[in-house]
């Protein structure tokens, strides 16, 4: 029977954090070598961060699957039970709108003053993306019925 594991996502995220940490310490080391002058990201740091992002997304998908589907799929129809999820949904929607306004303001400010703060803008946009993702997951979990079918092992699918 299909299982959603919780161990693999944990170690995936752990390794992702380790890679980010590695890139951070590497950057500090390079900065120290340059007399305290912060340097642009090196190729090695970009590689570490990229791999870390891939692992982080993989781990997060694992945890989201556990939350949405449970650790084991049970055949049958599973009715969604909204409960009080609408309040969480409203709060997240308001947060997404607020962050969007903040993002637009940051862009307009950068255009007017030529003062670009990529870290701030990136953090706001990441916040928007994560909020929208949380909304989608919330909808899937609390408002969409699920049906799990059973398929014999010797089906026509060769794998």
């Amino acid at each position, binding site marked *: *029977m299909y*299982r959603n594991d*919780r*161990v693999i996502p*944990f*170690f995936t995220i*752990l*390794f992702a*954090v*380790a890679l980010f*940490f*590695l890139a951070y*310490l*590497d950057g*500090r*080391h390079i900065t*120290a*070598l*340059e*007399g*305290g*002058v*912060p*340097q*642009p990201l090196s190729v090695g740091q970009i590689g570490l961060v990229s791999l870390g992002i891939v692992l982080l997304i993989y781990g997060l998908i694992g945890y989201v699957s556990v939350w949405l589907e449970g*650790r*084991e799929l*049970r055949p049958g129809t599973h009715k969604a039970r909204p409960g009080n999820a609408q309040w969480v949904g409203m709060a997240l929607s308001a947060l997404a709108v607020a962050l969007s306004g903040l993002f637009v303001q940051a862009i307009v400010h950068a*255009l*007017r*003053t*030529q*003062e*670009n703060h*990529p870290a701030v803008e990136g953090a706001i946009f990441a916040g928007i993306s994560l909020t929208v993702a949380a909304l989608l997951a919330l909808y899937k979990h609390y408002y969409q019925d699920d049906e799990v079918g059973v398929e014999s092992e010797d089906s026509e699918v060769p794998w």
Partner: protein
Amino acid sequence: MSGKGSSSSDTVVRIEVYLDDATEAVSVLTAPPFRFQLDSSALEQGDHTLRLVRIDAAGGRRERRIPFHVQHEPIVEVRGLEDGATVSGRVDIDVVAPAAAPREPVEPAGPSLWLYVLSTVLVLGGIWAFFMLVPIYSRVVAPPSTEAAAPASQPSGPPVDQTLLKAGETLYASDCASCHKPSGEGMPPTFPALAGNSFLSDASAVVKKVYEGGGSMPSHPSYTAKDLAAVATYVRNTWGNSYGGVSVSDAAGAEPKASNPAASAAQPSAPSGGSASGGTASGGSTSTGSTSTGAASTGAASGGSASSGSTSSGSTSSGSASSGSATGGQAPSGGAAGSSGNGSTSGSTSGSTSGSTSGNANGGSTGGSAAGTAGSSASTGSAPSASSGSAASGGQAAGGNEQALLSDGKQLYDSDCASCHQPSGAGIPPTFPALAGNDFLQDPAAVVQRIFDGKGTMPPHPSYTAKDLAAVASYIRESFGNSYGPVSVQEAGQAAPKAGQ
């Protein structure tokens, strides 16, 4: 199957379990929880009876009968051949194994919490330890050689040339202090602190960094080897640093592209001349021949237009003197003009009556700088003509003041701003934005406030007067292809009320 002792006072000694009519018990239960297992697969398919006999301590026997039915699963299910069927030839027969009863999924026991914690500590701690404890990293990060290990109060490097140290202080104040701060504390992380910075222990690296720049540090291609040696000596031996001096030959060796020492020695006054010219107001006080001449010619340029094209030097200085008094507040320049002679005094008097009608505050500040330079000798007789000139053509006077403002602004820009925003105004994006074609400059009040208060990597300039602010703002709004218009001293004063007049 299980049983329990009755609630009566009788105590259960044992429970005997019989199957059907057998006389031999299948199981004898003597103690709670009176549980046993019945293997139905060993029984015949059909009806059966389970008999439970309870025996009390008093010897009493009570019996309960439970009838049940045993239905065995078929070993195989056969389709295509019925019991007792008559067949001939080939017969297709399907044999199907009965499906096993679905099993309840068993929740696997996951790793315990301590395993997660231990893994996290091991992985992240291992990475940290790799960087912090492996000798190669600590060796590279630590300042090499003995000079860094030496106490700060005991210089262990080459002897410090006091002349170079002094020259370096001047250069640092004009080109470096806006970012690294006069106290050497910098503005981390963009502008690192120089006080206690181990990077300074390597003299050649310092020279290279100053000359070539790197990251947010701008290059200084105009520096001669002597300049490089002076700045390197200064930063290596100030704010508690004691890394030793850097000779001109060392600097030339570290940065061969820089001008040779001989060339720089031939023009020793170039840096100081530059800084002296940066002080438009202090130009008069330097009183060296070349400087006063230059300042006087500047005054002539502005004053000339103030007096409607008059070419005499007398009208030049008087024009500036009169406009200087129009503001009535130029303390330094006014003081200089006042002490210089009667001519300037009378010029200011008349200027206050006639020139003030134009209401041009810029004129006052411009005149102040010019008066500081040339007012002592050339302003005697022509003050009335200048005042009348400014009264007749206030617009032209403003034009002359504007030129003087731009001139002052350029000097201030070159000394305080160009190291980051570059002499061409191209900046070093994204840390230092370009000023050429920058829409932010459209708002004069915002420009003045930004210069005065600073923001982010832009350092504040609290020592700037309203006139300085107006001069720099006017210059950057009218240079590098920009044409946003000048900023008057009055506007600058309103935008930055805390600035001195």
